[in-house]
């Protein structure tokens, strides 16, 4: 049987390798090479071929000297921190609440998950209206339900826009993460809670001593997903602010470099995306190694 599988290994795996090579492998390597050249998209500055156009680390130096890029990195980091914390708390709260009721779990679950199905760009337009008109002029205006100046004109200021994007992100992805937490909660055996009750543990103690430690695998998955998604966020950014008022996240910044520079400096855009890749990969590897350690300890 082993021989049989060996014979068929290559033919079965070859289509995947081909797709991978052409879509990710080759472009990834080209991208790294081009980040060291004067690539302008349709031609190379200084020669007919990329090897005649090497500029060393110039694109990287330019990227790090660009206020827009540095600003987008800082802004993305802040957005990611706030969004990850908010999504996790809301998703866990949803899951715990649904875990403690018996009737109506299905409909609630469907409703909380549904925003995920609706596209970020499409619903971003609706949210733009909510922030600009409903929040600004109805709910939080001086003659509205209650006056909160911070919640008005949220899309016209860098700090407020960050929270506007967080509000929409939480609305959209908390339900998805909730499903993962529900899965995790269901896998915790009821015996443990019973034993804890017999030992005299109250609900708070049970949560911190039983639920939370046993939920660690789900928390890891959710952390990883929210971290990656927030760092790579694009469509909500495009729909809500379009990057105005210094609200570009990195993903949008890389798209806009082309428009900011003339002739379009694809080499610099490529340098920014390589930096972006290094950060994303570093976060993911750090996360994985931290999780491994914790799992060994448990």
């Amino acid at each position, binding site marked *: *049987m082993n021989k049989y599988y060996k014979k068929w*290994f290559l033919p079965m795996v070859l289509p995947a390798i081909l797709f991978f090579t052409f*879509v990710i492998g080759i472009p990834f390597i*080209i991208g790294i090479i081009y980040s060291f050249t004067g690539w302008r998209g349709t031609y190379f500055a200084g020669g007919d071929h990329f090897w005649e156009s090497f500029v060393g680390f110039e694109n990287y130096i330019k990227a790090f000297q660009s206020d827009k890029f540095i600003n987008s990195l800082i802004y993305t980091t802040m957005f990611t921190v706030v969004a990850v914390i908010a999504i996790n708390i809301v998703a866990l709260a949803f899951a715990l609440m649904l875990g403690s009721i018996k009737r109506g779990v299905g409909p609630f679950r469907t409703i909380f998950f549904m925003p995920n*199905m609706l596209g970020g760009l499409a619903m971003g337009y*609706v949210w733009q*209206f909510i922030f600009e008109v409903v929040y600004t002029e109805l709910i939080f205006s001086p003659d509205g339900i209650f006056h909160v100046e911070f919640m008005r004109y949220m899309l016209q200021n860098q700090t407020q826009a960050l929270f506007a994007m967080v509000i929409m992100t939480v609305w959209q992805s908390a339900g998805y993460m909730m499903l*993962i937490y529900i899965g995790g909660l269901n896998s915790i055996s009821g015996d443990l809670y019973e034993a804890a009750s017999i030992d005299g543990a109250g609900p708070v103690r049970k949560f911190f001593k039983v639920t939370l430690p046993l939920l660690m695998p789900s928390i890891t998955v959710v952390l990883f997903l929210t971290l990656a998604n927030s760092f790579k966020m694009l469509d909500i950014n495009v729909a809500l602010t379009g990057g105005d008022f210094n609200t570009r996240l990195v993903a949008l910044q890389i798209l806009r470099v082309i428009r900011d520079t003339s002739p379009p400096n694809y080499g610099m855009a490529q340098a920014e995306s390589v930096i972006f890749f290094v950060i994303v990969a570093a976060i993911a590897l750090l996360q994985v190694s931290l999780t491994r350690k914790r799992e060994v300890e448990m």
Partner: protein
Amino acid sequence: MTLGSKIGKAILYIVLVALALYTLMPVAFLVVNSFKSQADIIRNPLALPSAFTLDYLSNAFETIQFPKALGITVGLTVMSLVLIVLVSSFAGWAITRHKSKLSTAVYMMFVAAMLIPFQAVMYPLLNLFGAVGLKNITGLSIMYTGFGLSMSVFLYSGFFKSVPLSIEEAALIDGAGIMQIFFRIVFPLVRSTTVTVIVLNGMWIWNDYLLPFMALGTSSTRTLVLELYYARMLSGQFGNPWELIFPAVLISVLPMVIVFLCLQKYFVKGVSEGAVKT
């Protein structure tokens, strides 16, 4: 049940209902304002439409060329999903069944690729596909397959480990060919992983904005999301034309909502099982 815990339950339900209403609020806005004129929307966004009219919906229907865009989006999503499922289940099976340095290397390559963000390959990829004349729907579905593969191979190979070898052995002895073994025996056994792969990739491909935007650009072949983006862009130079945007958004999200409501148990299963395996 004591009185205290009854009150606790009641409060819990009140909180849940409030949260559910909050979650539904943007959708309710969307529906209500899809039947109103620009002036009505701005003046009174919360009110029900004063007169029932389908004018705005039919206007949006035409502006975003709904039937054509829907056809393109469905075609693209289905084509990509078929490719992803076939290619990644083949690879996942082969990697799990044949253990060697090469197969481990191939597996690691797919896992490592999950770390590469789209932006890192975007410009060279489009350049490459442009050069070979693939900046079209076919090219797009190839790109989606490439990007969707990593996670799908990972999910499949994880699940194949739990499928016993003995059935495949018996089939081989009975004289079945490789394709027969795969499609008649192996593939049906991993149905639940296939559901996960379809759900996770399908949600992303259907709603994706960036890749169609970069690959199709201003050509007349546009997905629903792209139509929506252009409808808003072209008419939005003098403020936002909400009487067009709201119905256009409503029409463009409707197909996915219907699919979701019909198949929601698969969505729930797909998401939770995808998480357990990753």
